[in-house]
């Protein structure tokens, strides 16, 4: 308490109330800073929903606000996954939408007129403020030093690892889930420390909220049992643990089963089994504990451990058998890919295709956490000093979290809270040591060491076996403190820089710099979606790669074939096949799915890397997974194994619908023979591709979005190739007959 860093400054206010007031003010300022640093995108662009998934969440929220909760719960969406539709109400995590809906109605009730879009845009920053406070509470459970909590709150508020998913406009499940994650952990620690059923029930309540919000709840479902298990292995079973765990598990599981999307998964799938197993194990332990207290016996201890271990082994065996017998569903693909790192690559290309599921290279860690990354081990080491139950939690969480963050970029998000807590413990320990105004007298401490040396040797760590004397020289203190101040300042600068440069782009709107340094906004996406909204029938089906499904649904309000909710791999593969096959094959597929327009993203003119030609191989791969005989990835590579788009490209590539749609008419922009794809630095052939079953309907200003209309059947019964050839004036009667493409009739 005495070594609060601000305490040294605010020496005047020694009273307890002054200190709490200061703490509240500081926390409020931190929350404000957390919110403010997430507003870059709103200031730089506008109040707009970002990226892909948030567009679906936004659309669902609008539906919820417009139609009420029960309609939302039963929502069957026939405007996506045409012609299948999607049982949306039963296949989403409703927490985010319901949260915004409640806020919206609360503000309405307070007669504050606010647009639902603004609530959605600003929800993530608002919750990040709460996350900072939750991190403060969690850290305060770990260490008596109150400065650690404030530092943790500050780190949590501005660490780029968390900002990456919570800038204004990033209206995604993670926006509220990280707050719930940290707060659930806080409640768990509280419940464990006090052995309190009330805290355990609160923990279960927030766990239920977490399950309703994000699929990542499995992280909690696995971490809490692991913590309990480690505690038991350390011989730290206690009634506190029993009460906290059983309360959380029983209530939390019941709560999680209320979500239609989760349903009976908690008693069926393997990722929920550790929690169930530990629950049973704790019952056994409690039973044996009771028996031991009733029947005193010397040999009982041995018997107890043998019995408990044996039962655990049998349970594990039963789990394995039940899994292999198919009673319990096998591990979910996404989860499985975390353990067997090659699983996804071989079996589920759609999971491997998502860039967030890639492993993390070290620069990403440093980019997202900066100096916290090396303060993190220091904090974990400090936790070993005392190693109470809550410190074991930090250690377990640190190991678990860093493994998963290493395997999957996206899970950096779940690592960030523990990094912030551990780093805050480290920094506050150093600050507490070096900011103390009291300096020991050499003679006194040396005398004290002689008497205390043996007594203090009880702590488990070798490094901490001697008693603390403190820092003698004022210069040493000032040197360390100023160095640390420099690091902290650098950290703040780093976070601001990263946030402003890397994480604040809405990706719906692209920003570029003109030669004079001024900003130029590239707004092709919205231009194209607006065109669709205004120029097509309301039920015109749009085919595009699944990445753009949510945006088309949200911004253009048109039915799509596939979207970012990748629930039906075959349907996605169908679109992949249509894109990667020749026109003769694709046209029947498009007719069968009543496609009216096809949308492709093309970055060749602007050098935009996120375009469809770059994603094309994934379409081919996913299609090949379903139709290995009709689509082959190999035929898109030249004999020398290159993926090319220029004159050297393979025939399959040149004839694929995607290639044709991307480069159709593109060479007209350039002088003859000069057409260049600026993204792939490829000189394109002089004669561009021809399209006979599609016609160009719209191309945006910078050619990023190109929309094609699917032609109707020819009105005098010719096939499209012949009709197109006739229109071009190149019809040769005999040649056409010889070529005789397959009939395009669809039965």
């Amino acid at each position: 308490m005495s070594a609060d860093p601000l305490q040294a400054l605010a020496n005047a206010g020694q009273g307890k109330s002054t200190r709490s007031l200061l703490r509240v003010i500081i926390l409020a300022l931190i929350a404000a800073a957390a919110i403010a640093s997430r507003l870059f995108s709103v200031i730089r662009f506008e109040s707009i929903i970002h990226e892909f998934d948030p567009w679906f969440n936004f659309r669902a929220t609008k539906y919820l606000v417009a139609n009420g909760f029960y309609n939302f719960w039963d929502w069957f969406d026939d405007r996506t996954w045409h012609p299948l539709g999607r049982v949306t109400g039963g296949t989403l995590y409703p927490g985010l939408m319901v949260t915004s809906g409640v806020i919206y109605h609360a503000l309405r009730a307070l007669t504050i007129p606010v647009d639902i879009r603004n609530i959605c845009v600003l929800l993530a920053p608002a919750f990040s403020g709460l996350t900072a406070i939750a991190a403060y509470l969690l850290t305060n459970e770990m260490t008596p030093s109150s400065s650690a909590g404030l530092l943790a709150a500050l780190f949590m508020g501005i660490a780029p690892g968390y900002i990456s998913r919570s800038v204004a406009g990033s209206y995604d499940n993670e926006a509220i889930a990280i707050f719930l994650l940290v707060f659930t952990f806080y409640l768990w620690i509280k419940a464990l420390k006090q052995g309190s059923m009330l805290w355990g029930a609160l923990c279960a309540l927030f766990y239920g909220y977490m399950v309703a919000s994000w699929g990542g709840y499995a992280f909690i479902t696995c971490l809490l049992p692991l913590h309990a298990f480690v505690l038991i292995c350390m011989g730290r079973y206690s009634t506190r643990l029993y009460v906290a765990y059983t309360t959380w598990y029983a209530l939390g599981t019941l709560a999680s089963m209320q979500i239609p999307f989760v349903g009976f998964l908690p008693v069926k799938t393997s990722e929920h089994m550790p929690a169930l197993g530990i629950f049973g194990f704790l019952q056994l332990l409690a039973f044996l504990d009771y028996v031991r207290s009733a029947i005193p016996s010397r040999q009982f201890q041995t018997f107890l451990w043998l019995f408990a271990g044996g039962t655990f082994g049998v349970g594990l065996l039963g789990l394995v058998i039940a899994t292999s017998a198919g009673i319990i569903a096998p591990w979910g693909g996404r989860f499985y890919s975390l353990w067997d790192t090659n699983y996804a690559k071989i079996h589920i290309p759609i999971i491997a295709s998502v860039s967030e599921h890639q492993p993390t290279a070290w620069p990403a860690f440093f980019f997202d956490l900066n100096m916290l990354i090396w303060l993190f081990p220091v904090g974990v080491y400090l936790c070993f000093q005392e190693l109470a139950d809550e410190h074991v939690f930090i250690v377990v969480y640190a190991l678990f979290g860093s493994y998963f963050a290493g395997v999957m970029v996206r899970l950096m998000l779940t690592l960030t809270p523990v990094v912030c807590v551990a780093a805050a413990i480290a920094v506050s320990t150093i600050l507490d040591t070096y900011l103390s105004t009291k300096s020991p007298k050499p003679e006194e401490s040396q005398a004290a060491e002689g008497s205390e040396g043996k007594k203090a040797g009880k702590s488990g760590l070798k490094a901490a076996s001697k008693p603390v004397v403190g820092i003698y020289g004022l210069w040493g203190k000032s040197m360390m403190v100023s160095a640390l101040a420099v690091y902290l300042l650098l950290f703040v600068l780093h976070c601001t820089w990263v946030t402003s440069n890397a994480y604040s782009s809405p990706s719906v709107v692209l920003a570029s710099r003109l030669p004079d340094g001024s900003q130029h906004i590239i707004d092709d996406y919205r231009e194209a979606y607006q065109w669709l909204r205004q120029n097509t029938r309301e039920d015109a089906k749009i085919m595009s790669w699944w990445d753009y499904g949510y945006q088309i649904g949200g911004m253009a309000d048109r039915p799509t074939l596939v979207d970012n909710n990748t629930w039906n791999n075959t349907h996605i593969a169908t679109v992949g096949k249509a894109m990667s096959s020749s026109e003769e094959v694709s046209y029947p597929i498009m007719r069968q799915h009543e496609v009216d327009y096809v949308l492709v993203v093309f970055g060749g003119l602007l050098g935009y890397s996120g375009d469809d030609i770059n994603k094309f191989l994934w379409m081919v791969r996913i299609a090949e997974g379903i139709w290995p005989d009709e689509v082959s990835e190999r035929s898109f590579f030249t004999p020398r194994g290159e993926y090319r788009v220029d004159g050297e490209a393979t025939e399959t590539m040149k004839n694929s619908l995607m290639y044709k749609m991307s480069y159709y008419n593109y060479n007209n922009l350039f002088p003859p023979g000069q057409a260049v794809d600026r993204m792939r630095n490829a000189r394109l052939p002089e004669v561009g591709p021809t399209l006979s079953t599609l016609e160009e309907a719209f191309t945006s200003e910078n050619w990023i979005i190109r929309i094609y209309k699917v032609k109707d059947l020819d009105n005098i019964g010719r096939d499209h190739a012949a009709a197109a050839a006739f229109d071009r004036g190149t019809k040769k009667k005999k040649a056409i007959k010889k070529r005789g493409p397959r009939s395009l009739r669809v039965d």
Partner: protein
Amino acid sequence: MRFLPTLLLALLGSASAAKKSPEERFQTYHAKALSSAPVKLGDPSYRELTGTPRDYTVAVLLTAMDARFGCQLCRDFQPEWDLLSRSWTAGDKKGESRVVFGTLDFADGRDIFMSLGLQTAPVLFLFPPTIGSHAAASPEPIRYDFTSGSQAAEQVHAWIARHLPDRPHPPVKRPINWMRWISTFVILSGGLTASYAAWPYVLPVIQNRTVWAGITLISILLFTSGHMFNQIRNVPYVAGDGRGGISYFASGFQNQYGLETQIVAAMYGILALSGISLAIKVPRISDPKMQGIAIIAWGSILFVVYSLLLSIFRGKNAGYPFSLPPFM
């Protein structure tokens, strides 16, 4: 008795192959396969077996097993191929699936490799039937793509099965690896005995907090320095810089080398160690002079290494604007 010489002739002479009916050919080769699958083919028997009116399917592996060719893939795939053909033939003794598995080595069928214009081995062809109820439109063989993924027998089995609808697909049966079971058992029991004997000595180590702290910190450093990335992506350990030297750091934000991650992990380790020393050890030094030296030493190590880390990171991320003095 008149049949016997003709049958013998048919078996021996390939010249009469064209005259034999598809059914006869299938029975001949199926009988051969039953005794030793896959059938080892030569130049004439390959032509006979794949000759065109055929009402059966032929799966032929064209390979080059001779050590001169140094075909690693051939040697890796051969046991899988043998396993597949053996278990298929054993599961289909009556020949209901009407598949013949054959292997043609380059040494036995140089001309066929030439005539097919094959530059690489192994090549797996599946010749569909041309007559009969399962006749395919084209007599041309289907080629298996060896480039994608592993070449396990199961995968090839799935590929063949896909091309043979409505016919039985005997599954691949892997023989039990007794050696592995026995060695696992021996190692396990040995390990258990050893741990039982060493338990009194091991226990203090297991219960030692410093040991656990060390293990924890090392794993954290491994994971946060991108070790899993190396595991998953199989990145090279180091690479040349094109001028005869070694480049320690991969260019680009999304790339890294094995050595690079070790350097980074070591730097994180040094930084963490100085942090721990400053937080725990230094305030416990009772001699003022020693303490002063320790503060300066650890403090400056921290500063310099952090500065180095920042400069390395600037190398990875060109636009990064921040740096600390020594390595600007």
